[in-house]
């Protein structure tokens, strides 16, 4: 039982620390990606409109 308890304690600590780092990175990077997604979609639609008008 001691082995399992030690293992689960280590898993919990490592998991929480990794997730805290990941959360900060994803929150910042995700905000930039949203801006990029809107720009990319707008560009796709402009190209589509130009193609149709030609």
């Amino acid at each position, binding site marked *: *039982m001691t082995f*399992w*308890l030690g293992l*689960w*304690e280590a*898993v*919990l600590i490592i*998991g*929480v620390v*990794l*997730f*805290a780092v*990941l*959360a900060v*990175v*994803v*929150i*910042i*990077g*995700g905000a*930039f*990606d*949203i801006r*990029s*997604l*809107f720009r*990319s*979609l*707008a560009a*796709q*639609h402009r190209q*589509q409109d130009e193609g149709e008008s030609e």
Partner: protein
Amino acid sequence: MDALQKIAAESNFSTIDWVIVCVYLFGSVLIGLYARRYIANMADYVVAGRALKTYLGLATMIGTEMGLVTVMYNAQKGFTGGFAAFHIAVVAAVITLAVGLTGFIVVPLRRAGVMTIPEFYEKRFTRGVRVLGGLILALSGIINMGMFLKAGALFVMGVTGMTDPTRLNIIMTVLILLVLLYTILGGMISVVITDYIQFVVLSLGLLVASAIALNKFGWDNMVNTVVTHRGEGGFNPFHESGFGTGYVLWMVMLGLVVSAIWQTAVMRACAAESTKVVRRIYMWSSVGFLIRCLIPFFWGICALVYVAGHAEFKAILLPDTGQPDPQHTLMAMPLAMSATLPAGVLGILTAGMLAAFMSTHDSYLLCWSSVLTQDVLAPLLGERLTTRMRLIFARTFIFAIGVFLLLWGLWYPLGQDLWDYLTITGAIYFTGAFAVLVCGIYWKRASTLGAYGALLCGFGALLGLKPLQDLLGVEWATEWVGLSTVAAATVTMVVGSLLVPDRKKEA
């Protein structure tokens, strides 16, 4: 007053918490609706124009997979299984990481340029396999999410202390209507934006709430409570008094399914900008897959400590003889949360969880309606199904599934842990899909007949449902029913392919 109402009546939910919840939810809906202006075609609607980059892909993948329902069923597993439940998190993380490193299944799917898994079936086999695969996938997925609304209602009841069933039903109906509104109008673009917001609130909320819970209950106290109430099986996942070896093997299968075969996760791979992004999303998501189980398990153990110290709840949730009602153990975590967290923090976390509830619904509604439109109707109607008609059908399916969820949530008696219900209803699809996808991608001789047989084998998983077992007068463990169905589907796929190979492949 029945047991559920007795449990719910203990909540500390205050007016400030209600205000936070309302402002947050309506704000999310407005932002989701804003995304409507970017929808021009079906690819924008279903896979956000295939323009998802790594961080947003990660946020939306974790956001979808870390919903209220996930937190509820995992907390229930922590409550009933103790620390041994952590093995589910470790297995899920290791397998997701392995999928990211190897690109197993997901990279070939992204390379094939498909939007759904059944679309791959048509490319690899025939149109008929696609239609059958699409039907089974949608059926399994819709029944699978049939308990989501009930889980959400139990959460609201446990956290807010609202015991009036009429008011509870009204709140759940309003939530589902809000989801329907922005999913129908905004499609995948709304989904990724609202998933991102949810990721921000929920990831911070989970970490803060866990720190408060650890401080309140104490690690040693948690260990001692698990020793007292769960014994060796509360720590060692292979111990037969707890999960047992069969269950661990079933979780290995589930880890692969959740990351690489379940359509909602695969949709993110299909929406990624490139195969490189797919791999990166999966590698990083392994941390999300670990934590989405680990923190709720931890909360479930906190709930065990809380209940063990409360004579009235102990009589209901930890009875001396027999098993407690699974609906009651589902409420243990929200009950402990509402008694532990301070006002404000409780409101933010509840708002995050309800947003997560809506986010899971929007992803799943979009997913199953897309499958029904793209993989069942489109192959059957062909050219007659215009882009405009596809959008109309997808939106109609979303509405119809929403109505089904309301009815099924009220009618179906759960009778087993929510996680086990979800695994077995999902297994109707994924047991066959596993065999068809793996053989279809990696084995040249895989044939159409083998694929049909494997997909149909999935219905064997229904035998794992408790109400059906009660009807048949049998008692079979969920994990063995699931593993047997996987084996049957794989054998059928291989034997069927060897006996009746596809003619064009032979030529």
